[in-house]
């Protein structure tokens, strides 16, 4: 695949949607993660209640792929079980590393939007970073309860 095709409409639209691209006022936890290879940085706020994610806000200093993944996280996390987040990350990783598509009715099946990134190893971390930040933020939020 030509790298031009990686920027498919869905990824570009997600990034431009800027969903959740605003910090939360009273987060239960905030996590900042860096990708030392490319310098991408995600700061992610989360609130949780009764084992569910209630709000996500983020600030991304990074590339369009990182922005798109952050927007997807913010869009699809609300109302989902906190325990399903690591599964979402694993589904994304399986998609990137071995092209395994999640089944459609799974939680976090929407990570399939990032299929075109699979071929570009140097960019995998760009899309995984927001998922890792969300996982860490939930861990922190729940450890406080």
């Amino acid at each position, binding site marked *: 695949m*030509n*790298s*031009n*095709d*990686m*920027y498919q409409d869905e990824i*570009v639209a997600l990034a431009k949607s800027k969903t959740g691209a605003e910090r939360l006022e009273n987060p239960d936890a905030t996590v900042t993660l860096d990708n030392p290879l*490319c*310098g991408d*940085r995600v700061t992610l706020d989360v609130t949780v209640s009764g084992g569910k994610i209630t709000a996500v806000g983020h600030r991304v*200093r*990074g*590339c*369009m*792929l990182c922005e798109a993944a952050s927007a997807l996280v913010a869009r699809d996390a609300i109302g989902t079980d906190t325990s399903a987040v690591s599964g979402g990350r694993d589904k994304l990783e399986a998609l990137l590393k071995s092209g395994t598509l999640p089944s459609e009715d799974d939680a976090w099946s929407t990570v399939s939007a990032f299929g075109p990134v699979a071929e*570009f190893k140097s*960019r995998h971390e*760009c899309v995984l970073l927001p998922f890792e930040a969300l996982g860490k933020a939930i861990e922190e939020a729940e450890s406080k309860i």
Partner: protein
Amino acid sequence: MSFDVEALRRQFPILDRTVHGKPLHYLDNSATSQIPNTVLDAVERHEIAHRANVLRGIHYLAEAATEAYENARKDVALFINAADSSEVVFTSGTTSAINLVAHSFGQGLKPGDEIVISMLEHHSNIVPWQLLRQRSGIVLKVIPATDDGRMDLDKLPDIVTEKCRMIAVTHVSNVTGADTDIHRIVEAARAVDAKVLIDGAQRVPHGPVDVQNLGVDFYTFSGHKMYAPNGIGVLWARRELLDDLPPFMGGGEMIRTVTMEDTIFAEPPHKFEAGTPPIAQAVGLAAATRWLSETDTPEAILHVAKLAERTLSGLAEIADGRIRIIGPQGTQSRLPVISFTVDGIHPHDVCQILDSYGVALRGGHHCAQPLMDFFDVTGTTRASLTFYNNQADVDALLEGLAAAIKKLT
């Protein structure tokens, strides 16, 4: 005599290849340049006919390899106009050359002594001095940058004090392309009896330098950025300094006599070349110096300057001013290392799309994070040109960039 860029390109077989089905437009020369046939041939001929370890060997090949290695030193000395070839220390690159100086020169420093660097340095001329600060309690001072990405040399009188022992700065910035006025650095250093180290990694690929005329004490550069193989670089220093400095690494090749109690070191430059050196790489570097000395004619330099000018003016015309040049806006006192940002688009996205047009650029912090902070950007996209680039390379860059901006906006 006119300059025939297409004839020059034929000396670089890689420039003929395609990537993603498109002709390659290689504009990442500041990271690593390509190698001409004559250099590849020199390396191959050496490995086929003269491969052996250097020094001490009493057989034909060992003597031939030693001669080739020492002749390479002579070629490099000629290229930078060193007073003597014993002033040329082979290292694995600029980074190891600067680390050598930070260790060996650093050993003679005491807490409170000052080293002056600049905001425009590559990490390889920042971190070794920070490590020295941790070891020895020296004070690190920084020449600031100007808004157009040059060293602010007007600040020298405030920064360089009687406690200064060394000014260590880059000859040409690997981000902004700005060409430093070395004579002003030397003048400031001499006024307080300090030494001068120049990181020439980005300057040397554009033609020979004259270390004696520059009046500096240490000069460093890397082979892989100047049409030579990887794994070889140069530390040049005045002979009297090399005589006085302690060695950095210990091992074979750098000794005269070793007993279990003590070691008498070899004379410079071997005192600083512990272990088996990169021999074929040195032969390649020597071939590259000869090639470059012939190639950097006034016509060739004019050719590159014109391409740089067209690149700069082309960037200004794209996307209604959304492109910001990080560095000097014109071609005065700068080399064709051109960094820019596109408002709202990350450099890695720019580079990824340009790659699909066959255009090789570099995006990110370019190992110069303090400078990125100064310009308040996460990174830049950099196009770096050299003699073998042509108008088609510049056109592909500008066309690809316009398409990338359209796609990502």
